[in-house]
């Protein structure tokens, strides 16, 4: 009997739980507020990047709202923490769409974005990814738009450059997650196509900053160049490379451009491709004043993505169309070219942006040349 009673009580509590779950932020918001969503990792190891992304978005919309909003409409972004996990992302997606009625959502990280892509197609919700670069994101959904090139584009540019410089043998150090493995796969494919040979590869776990064993093993293969696809922990990496005093060139992707690593003298001579996105000095200063951190690559990307949304919403409001996911999507492709922090064009779901080859020198990141990927 006790058991049956318990079950009844449990059922009551389940109902209560559902009610509580549904209570999120009463929808009695001000009429002229446009509400958007963002699903980013704000806790866990992914939070390093997620927090910067959140700040980029918040910073952009705060500025817009301070000036009275878009045609008088304030923009409010509801942030959801997905801990970089796909299942939490799906739950958050449904929550934002059903309860907050958001027409678009900012995402980052490949796994969560891929998990949400089918839902976005089905519900016609625009997903803007300004952080993840997995090649699979290119065709995951017509409603998933990437404002930065995929890793493959960067690898292609770098491979060509390396061969031109006479660096024909390479070793790969990659992070054992979607971003790192994607980059490794691209490199294994594209570097030989450009005429080079990959001698060795070694993985490290995300956030595991002791690279020494992997670096030692790779250097034993005596490559001309070490290609690095790692998203966090750059300062220990450059210091440990310096410690080894290795004879090879170190090359990487946009991920390499961690300001703290560039500032460290140990990074001298490292080259990397750089998805072009610059912040004017006054913007950087204001950002640093507000958050105490530099406006890094991800903050700039999401700031830029937020500005793209402002442009699209502005046009929709001018045309007096309702702000739905479908309209946002169509208008984005109708505008096609954007002048945000960097000029970009949407020929497909993935923006075409110039890619630079940079070299770290005496605490500065110097652009050697710029290429526009196909």
């Amino acid at each position: 009997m006790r058991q049956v009673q318990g079950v009844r009580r449990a059922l009551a509590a389940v109902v209560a739980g559902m009610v509580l779950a549904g209570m999120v932020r009463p929808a009695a918001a001000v009429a002229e507020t446009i509400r958007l969503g963002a699903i980013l990792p704000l806790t866990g190891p992914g939070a390093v990047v997620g927090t910067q992304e959140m700040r980029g978005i918040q910073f952009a919309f705060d500025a817009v709202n301070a000036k009275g909003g878009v045609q008088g409409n304030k923009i409010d972004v509801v942030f959801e923490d997905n801990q970089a996990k796909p299942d939490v992302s799906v739950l958050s997606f449904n929550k934002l769409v059903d309860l907050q009625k958001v027409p678009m959502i900012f995402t980052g990280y490949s796994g969560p974005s891929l998990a949400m892509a089918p839902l976005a197609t089905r519900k016609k919700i625009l997903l803007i990814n300004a952080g993840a670069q997995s090649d699979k994101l290119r065709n995951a959904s017509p409603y998933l738009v990437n404002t930065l090139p995929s890793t493959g584009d960067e690898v292609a540019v770098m491979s060509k450059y390396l061969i031109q410089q006479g660096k024909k043998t390479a070793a790969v150090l990659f992070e054992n997650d979607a971003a790192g493995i994607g980059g490794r796969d691209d490199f294994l494919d594209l570097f030989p196509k450009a005429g080079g040979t990959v001698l060795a590869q070694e993985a490290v776990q995300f956030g595991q900053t002791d690279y020494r064993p992997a670096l030692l093993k790779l250097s034993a293969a005596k490559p001309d160049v070490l290609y690095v696809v790692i998203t966090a922990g750059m300062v220990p990496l450059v210091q440990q490379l310096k410690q080894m005093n290795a004879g090879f060139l170190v090359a990487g992707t946009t991920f390499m451009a961690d300001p703290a690593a560039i500032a460290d003298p140990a990074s001298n001579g490292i080259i990397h491709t750089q998805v072009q996105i610059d912040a004017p000095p006054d913007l950087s200063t204001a950002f640093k004043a507000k958050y105490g951190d530099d406006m890094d690559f991800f903050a700039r990307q999401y700031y830029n993505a937020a500005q793209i949304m402002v442009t699209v919403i502005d046009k929709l409001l001018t045309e007096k169309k309702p702000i739905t996911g479908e309209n946002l999507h169509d208008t984005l492709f109708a505008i096609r070219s954007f002048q945000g922090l960097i000029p970009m064009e949407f020929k497909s779901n993935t923006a075409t942006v110039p890619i630079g080859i940079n070299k770290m020198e005496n605490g500065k990141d110097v652009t050697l040349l710029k290429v526009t990927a196909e």
Partner: protein
Amino acid sequence: MVWLQLLVNGLVTGAALGVVAISFALIYATTKIFHVAHAGVYTLAGYLAWSLASRGMPDLVSLLVAILCCTVVGALIQHQLYARLERRRATHLVVLIASLGALAVIQNVIAATYSSNILQFPVPWGSRVETFGSVRLTWTQILTVVLSVAAYAGTMWFAHRTILGKQIRAVASNPFLAEITRLRPQRIYVIVVAIGSAIVALPGVLVPLDLGLQPYGGVTPLLTATIAMIAGGVGSITGAFVLAVGIAVLQNLSLLVIPGEWSIGVTFFIFVIFMLFRPTGLFAKAR
């Protein structure tokens, strides 16, 4: 000579890990509490030292203050949490879950205060390199080895040569008997967790000095240290230290034969197999 550098790197990592292992072993052997929150104390030490160092405090002062704070935090966890649970006659499982809760609290207080970015210590001297034949070590690495071995020697001296150390070992071997002889185990427990926390603060500062700070970064070192403690035989400080060094060396050298992404998996695989065939550890005394 790749293997030589790998071996030396393993010894460096292992020395720091060994100190984590002996601090945990000291606590576990005495209180029998599986103190997972120890990983939080370990992480806290680094952040405290970083706060002070980046505000211009001398490096040594930062280290000592961090050690002092961790001692207090450890004592508080024992006195406010574990002792209360003990009075309520909580099972092992309950204490373990409470400890997991305490770990979550410490980690997220850190994450909320410092953000979850990887932080670097502002110590330019740390990455300076010394060359010994074909082996190259940073100053931080050299300091890590020296201080870790000193911490091990100090702990051994403390446990075997001081009255308090002997009392602790008495309580560890038989809390009931110790109670009759009026050693007051609960008081000893607080002292032991405090001392263990002070010891773990050392690698807690030294390792991030080399590799950077992360709020959620304490769990893997603690688990590996736990494995070392069990494999070394619970109650044996030397066993815990030696096994920790051994595991770190093996993890480093294993790269010569297996891809690096499998090294953690292989470590735990060997451990699981080991537990099936020799569950009392290599250094355990015959009973």
